[in-house]
């Protein structure tokens, strides 16, 4: 895909995503029924769960793109990994702040050292390390390679987080949507959740596409400057 197309697609996806998130917010405030046991605070669910889904989607993409970069050495894969990692950190921060606000009312504490919470926080720090590795190497190519390795190594945590709810005693609720017997969520709640999920996903994909095109363009510019000043290709 050329950069212009990536930019247009990014703008389009992000715009649709923002509209869907606004609609989801309207549904959360005015439409969806209040959950019986937790009350109004349960409505954070419609932000927290989509943010968590987007975070794992982003970090999964980072791992795949990093693997592709290590295997093929293609700069575009590295640009995609950076774009996804930034998105993952932002949506991860939303997940890690919305969760404690909900937990304060549901569990009586902002933070508890239960497996999923702890492992997710650690995953977020792993990808923070990804940027530290990139930025702290004297040779940028080495930084990209080492960061890709960190991303692949760190992604070993993702399946563990997924199974932690069923493996360990956890305060986190079991899945209510993806179950063998079908979703057990009230249909209006499900509709709100899916609208929000769609909005978050589209917004992430849009931002990812835009960031990828900026990253790719900046590398081409750097390469052109290098060629101009030295007369050789980087």
């Amino acid at each position, binding site marked *: 895909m050329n950069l212009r197309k990536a930019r247009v697609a990014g703008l389009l996806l992000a715009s649709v995503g923002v509209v869907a998130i606004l609609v989801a917010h309207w549904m959360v405030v005015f439409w969806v029924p209040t959950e019986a046991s937790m009350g109004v605070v349960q409505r954070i669910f419609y932000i927290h769960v989509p943010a968590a889904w987007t975070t794992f989607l982003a970090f999964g993409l980072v791992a795949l793109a990093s693997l592709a970069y*290590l295997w093929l050495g293609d700069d575009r894969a590295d640009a995609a990994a950076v774009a996804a990692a930034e998105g993952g950190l932002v949506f991860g921060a939303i997940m890690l702040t919305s969760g404690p606000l909900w937990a304060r009312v549901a569990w009586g504490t902002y933070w508890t050292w239960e497996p999923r919470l*702890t*492992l997710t926080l*650690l*995953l977020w*720090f*792993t990808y*923070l*390390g990804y940027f*530290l*590795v990139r930025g*702290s*190497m*004297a040779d940028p190519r*080495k930084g990209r*390679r*080492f960061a*890709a*390795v*960190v991303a*692949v*190594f*760190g992604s*070993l*945590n993702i399946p*563990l987080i997924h199974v932690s709810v069923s493996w360990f005693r956890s305060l986190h609720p079991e899945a209510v949507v993806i179950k063998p017997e079908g979703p057990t969520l009230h249909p209006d709640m499900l509709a709100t959740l899916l609208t929000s999920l769609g909005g978050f996903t589209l917004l992430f994909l849009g931002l990812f596409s835009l960031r990828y095109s900026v990253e790719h363009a900046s590398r081409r510019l750097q390469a052109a400057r290098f060629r101009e000043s030295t007369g050789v290709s980087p």
Partner: protein
Amino acid sequence: MRELRWGCMIALKDLRLELRSGSRLLAMIAFVVLSALLFSVSLNLAHLEVRGLVAGLVWLTTLFAVTAGAGRAFDTEENDGAFRHVLLTPVSRGAIFLGKTAANWVLVWFVTMLAFFALTTFMEIRSPGPLAWHGAVFLPGTIGLAVTGTFFGRVSNHSTLGDTLLPVLTFPLLVPVVFFGATATSRILLERPWLEISGPVRFLWAFAVGSAVAGTVLFRHVADE
């Protein structure tokens, strides 16, 4: 088989180098003994559940010792340019990594044992439970620590952030190891049955094997100059 032999040769070379200079090992020993001493004098043991506390302290002390010492596995060779020569030998990158990790593991194992005996002695735990069970917990735990320390030691070695980067990279991965290691050790100290200990030990083995495979496969991407 040949790869394994080369890995052993690299491990023996590293251990011989370490025994000749002794600086890294001595620093790790001093760190562990002094930490154990500091913990025992700074904590008011009368109001604490000592056995659970000792288990956590053993694993934390080992973790910090690994960060301080095992992460420097490449320093000596890197400083005098010898690592370039190691890379020029017809040995696969995976075998080099396994050799380096094996040498590091010997140090980590020694340091863990030392931390365990120092802390149980200073904190006056007279019956620490069956030592074979402790060994069965420490074995996979220390392999996981050595693998991660060696691998990310190589990464941080090239970074301008140096030693600051190593804990940022290793701690997020090693927190589950410390958690399950401390859980298993505390259960042994509390004389719980093996059935309650085998779960954490299985996780420690899964981490040790998974990280060793990932490290061996990925090492070639961080090995080259």
